[in-house]
Each structure stands twice: as structure tokens, then as C-alpha cells.
């Protein structure tokens, strides 16, 4: 590489505690642009907490979060989304009262402007915008190979496809940073391979992906860099090869027995 890639997300000294338990004990890292950056660690290491702080669901006790230099701390969730962060959820948060297409059209909310009054009067502008939202949603569905499911009710889909609709919905927002919270959980092997391909296609569109995942073969094959968390602290950071060779990671996470064998 001729010049170092610029960092999109920069987190410094992030702290978050729940009633005396330090969920995040001063975490710092930065993610370069247009990469797949995975966050791994044992259960309770603080991965989902990190996501929730990033999205403004929790307010951190200390530290800073910057997206492209813009401080996120203290902003409400919908403002953070407007700055270019989208996410999926560990436990599905689909809109089960809507069709697949409508779910994904909600994803495009920020790219349109129609307010309640103009919508009520159905001005020509509204009609054009609806058409545009539908096209954006269809593009996202296409990328996620869900185009043939557009008109189905989101509640009628099998679990694996529901998870994919969440990704499509997030993509319809055209985010700069996409947070995927355990996208492979509950998927079978075929679906996991399809997911890997999908994540790679997403990176190819220039979106930075932040991936929290337990499925190690997926993480190691898809990520450009990894961050290992343990008890709310950063244990290691580096390329998949670095991480797999790191004795601290092996001891804490990948299997304690290995370090004795080496």
C-alpha cells in the first residue's frame, strides 16, 4: 500500500459499566475505511455493549467515539444513524407487521424527505419519492438475493432469510459503517457460506463492516482485521494471521490447551 488507509471509526478510552460491572474498561481502536473489521471475544466480553454504545442506546461513562472526526457520544440514535451508521440485531428486530419490501423501504427513510403533511396530500413529489425508495429497496434486496421475497410478509420467512432482510434493510440506508451483530448465529453451513459471500459483496460497495461473530471459520476467512475483547478490554488487534498466532488470544479464547502444546 502506498499510503495508510484513513480511519473511519475512531474509538478512544471507551468505558461503560452496569451497576459496578465494567462492561467496557477503556477500549481504544480504529477501523480503516472499506474493510471488514471483526470483533471477537468470549460471551460477556462487551461486544454487543460496544455496538449499543456506538448506536447511542447506552451513554458511555467515559471516552470518545468519532465517525470521520464527528463525535457520536451524546447523540440520540436516529442522529447517529443519519451520520451513516446502520446495524442488524443479535435478536431479530424486524418489522413483522410489514412486507419484506416495506421493511427494506424503511431502511431508506433517511434518504427521503416526505413529511406527514405532504404525504397526507400525496403531492406529485411524494409519488416520485415513493418510486425512488422502492427502487433503492429493490437494489438492496437484489444484493441480498431476496428479490423474489419482496411481497411476502416478513413474519412468514424462515429464520435465515429474516436475518438477511435485516441486512438488506440496513443496506438500504446506504451507510458508511455497517454493524453486523452475530449474523451467522442460527444459520446452517450453506447459509453461512452465502453470508460470507454477501459480506464480501457489501465490502466491495465501499461500506465498512464491523462484524461481531462467534463463528470462527467465517470470521477468519472474511475479516481484514480483528479486535479481540476479553472482560471489556482489548486483548489483541491485528490481521487474522496475527490473531491466530497470538498466545494471549489462544489462552483466553481459542483454547487454553494449545499454549501448552506449543
Amino acid at each position, binding site marked *: 500500500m502506498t499510503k495508510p488507509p484513513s480511519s473511519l471509526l475512531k474509538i478512544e478510552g471507551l468505558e461503560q459499566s452496569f451497576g459496578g460491572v465494567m462492561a467496557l474498561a477503556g477500549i481504544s481502536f480504529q477501523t480503516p475505511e472499506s474493510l471488514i473489521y471483526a470483533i471477537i471475544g468470549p460471551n460477556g466480553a462487551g461486544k454487543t455493549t460496544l455496538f449499543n454504545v456506538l*448506536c447511542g*442506546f447506552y451513554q458511555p461513562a467515559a471516552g470518545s467515539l468519532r465517525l470521520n472526526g464527528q463525535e457520536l457520544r451524546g447523540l*440520540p*440514535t*436516529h442522529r447517529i*444513524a*443519519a451520520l451513516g451508521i*446502520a*446495524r442488524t*440485531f443479535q435478536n431479530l*428486530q*424486524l*418489522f*413483522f*407487521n*410489514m412486507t419484506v419490501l*416495506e421493511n427494506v*423501504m*424503511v*431502511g431508506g*427513510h*433517511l434518504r*427521503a424527505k*416526505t*413529511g*406527514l403533511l405532504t*404525504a*397526507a*396530500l*400525496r403531492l406529485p413529489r*411524494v409519488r416520485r*419519492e*415513493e418510486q425512488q*425508495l422502492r427502487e433503492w429497496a429493490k437494489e438492496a434486496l437484489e444484493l441480498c438475493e431476496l428479490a423474489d421475497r419482496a411481497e411476502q410478509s416478513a413474519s412468514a420467512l424462515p429464520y435465515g432469510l429474516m436475518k438477511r432482510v435485516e441486512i438488506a*434493510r440496513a443496506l438500504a*440506508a446506504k451507510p458508511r459503517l455497517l454493524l453486523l451483530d452475530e449474523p451467522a448465529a442460527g444459520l446452517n453451513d450453506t447459509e453461512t457460506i452465502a453470508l460470507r459471500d454477501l459480506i464480501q459483496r457489501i465490502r466491495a460497495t465501499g461500506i465498512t463492516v464491523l462484524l461481531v461473530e462467534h463463528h470462527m471459520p467465517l470470521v477468519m476467512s472474511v475479516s481484514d482485521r480483528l479486535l479481540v475483547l476479553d472482560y471489556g478490554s482489548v486483548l489483541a488487534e491485528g490481521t487474522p494471521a496475527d490473531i491466530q498466532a497470538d498466545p494471549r488470544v489462544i489462552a483466553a479464547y481459542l483454547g487454553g490447551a494449545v499454549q501448552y502444546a506449543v
Partner: protein
Amino acid sequence: MRLVGFYLFAAVAVLLPILFPDNYFVTVVGASAGLHVILAVGLNLLMGYAGQISLGHAAFFGMGAYTSAILTTRFAWPGLLAMAAGLLVAGVMAWLFARPILRLRGHYLAMATLGFGIIVHVIMVQAMHWTGGPDGLAGIPPLNLLGWTVEGDQQWYGVIIAAMLLTIWLSLNIVDSRMGRALRAVRGSEFAAQMMGIDTARAKTQVFVVSALFAAFAGSLFAHQQAFISPDSFNLMISVELVTMVVLGGMASTFGAACGAIALTLLHQGLVVFEDYEMLIHGGLLMVVMIFLPQGLFVGLSQGVRRVMNNSSIVLRYREIVSTKLSSSSR
């Protein structure tokens, strides 16, 4: 295509008085049903789509009615101007009330809106100097629409049906838009809605105001049509009945709410004969509907019809013929 249901609804509403001229049931009960439809369609935006309950909606109905009544009788305001003032009062009250109250969920929200409804009712009864107290306000002048004075049951039927169709059209437009989907998203998952960039507090406030405006609109029309109003028309039972209309017809469906409103209006008329047993039959019917059609009359029945259409042998045979014809013609 989007408005097929709307045109059907409009056609029925317009044809009824033509087919049955000078019929008391059509004009008077129809007008009453029309007002209920406006109220239910507005409340459905809040309850059915955004998933927020209001047990005090009669308060906004009353605000529209009393503002119109007071301004036209005491200050001789023109009807339309008074109506606009009524909309303003209800809209501003809803907006002030929405921010703190819509932070609440479920039972708490129900309790808070219930309290609001009771307070407004108490004001109607106690502020005698303005509202006439329990005796109400009489002598409300007929509505004057740019020189045309609305008089008689037939004309009122026309005006109320036009107003009803307007609100149905507005509601359909809202639902099938970016903001409508945002409302449904709030009901589906507030977390995810925020993550999609929806300011959920703002969306809830807006829909609360819109449903209050619908109610106040109905209230103003009601005051002029009746020429007399009293607090009895805006008490807790009315609020509960409005909720019943939405739930009975089917939540999250504009026509569901409209059908619920019409069904309940007709039911009341039909049960007048039974006097003492009215509430008993009323309650019994509601229980039966909720047990057998929990999604509501309209939504439940239309789903049933669709299921029959999809499965019955005649329909299947017909589809087979059509599809073979289509495939052979395309070759």
C-alpha cells in the same frame, strides 16, 4: 389500483341516499356513522399503525365541538373559522400533551390518556360560564360553507360523507408513505426504527396530533349538525367506544376502522329496541367477535375470504385454465 377500496367505499356512500331517498335510517344514522368513521380512522392511525393507545380520544372530539359551539354562539364567529380554531386548539393541546405522555408504554399510556380524557370532561361539566355545564350549549347556528347554509338531514349526510371520504383519503395516503411506514416501524420495533434514522418521539407526537385533528374535525361538524352539545357526548364511555370501533373493525387497516365504526353505529341503532338489554347484547357480541375474529371483523373476514379463494376447487380449476391459456398463447 391503490385506491380501489376508497372508490368502492365512496360509491356505496353516494348511492345509498339515491337508492333510498328520504330514508331516516340512511341520512341520520348514516351521518352519525360517518362522524364515527372520521374518529375511528384518526384513532386507528395512532393505535393501529403506531401502536399507541388513547383512552381519552373523546376529549379531542369535545374540544372541536366546544370550540366551534362557543365561538359561534357567544362570539358570532363564522362556522369555518370556528372550526379552524377548534382544530388549532385540539392540535396544540395534543402536541403539548404528547411529548411527556408518549414516553409511557402499554398500561401506563392507557392510564395517562384516560386521566386526560377525564380531566377534559370535568372541565366541560364544571366550567359552566363557558360550556353551559351539564346542561350543555344550545342554539349552535347551522354551518355556513362559503354562502351555502347546510340544513336538513340530506344535506348534512352529504357534508359529513364528504368529510369522511376526505379523512379516509388522507389516512390512506399517510399509511402508504415514508411517514406511514415510519409509524408502523415504531410499532414493529422502536429500537430498529431509531436505528433506521426515525425520530420515534417526533413520529409519535405527529401522529397523536393528526389523530386529535381528525377528532376535532368530527367534533366541529357534530356540534353544527346537532345544534346542541353536552358533556355526555364526550365522556369516558365514548372514548372506550372509539377504541372498540378500531379493535372491532381490525387494527392497522383504514377500512377496518371505518367498518368497525359503521358496525358499532348500526349495532347501537339495532339494539335501541331492546333498551334494557342493549349493553348486555353489545358486550356479548364484542366477546364473540374477539374470540372468533381476534384480528377484527373486517381484517379477519377479508383474510378468511382470501383463504377460501386460494383453496377452493373452483378457483384452483379456473387458475389452471388461465395459466395454460397464457402459456400456450405466449408460445
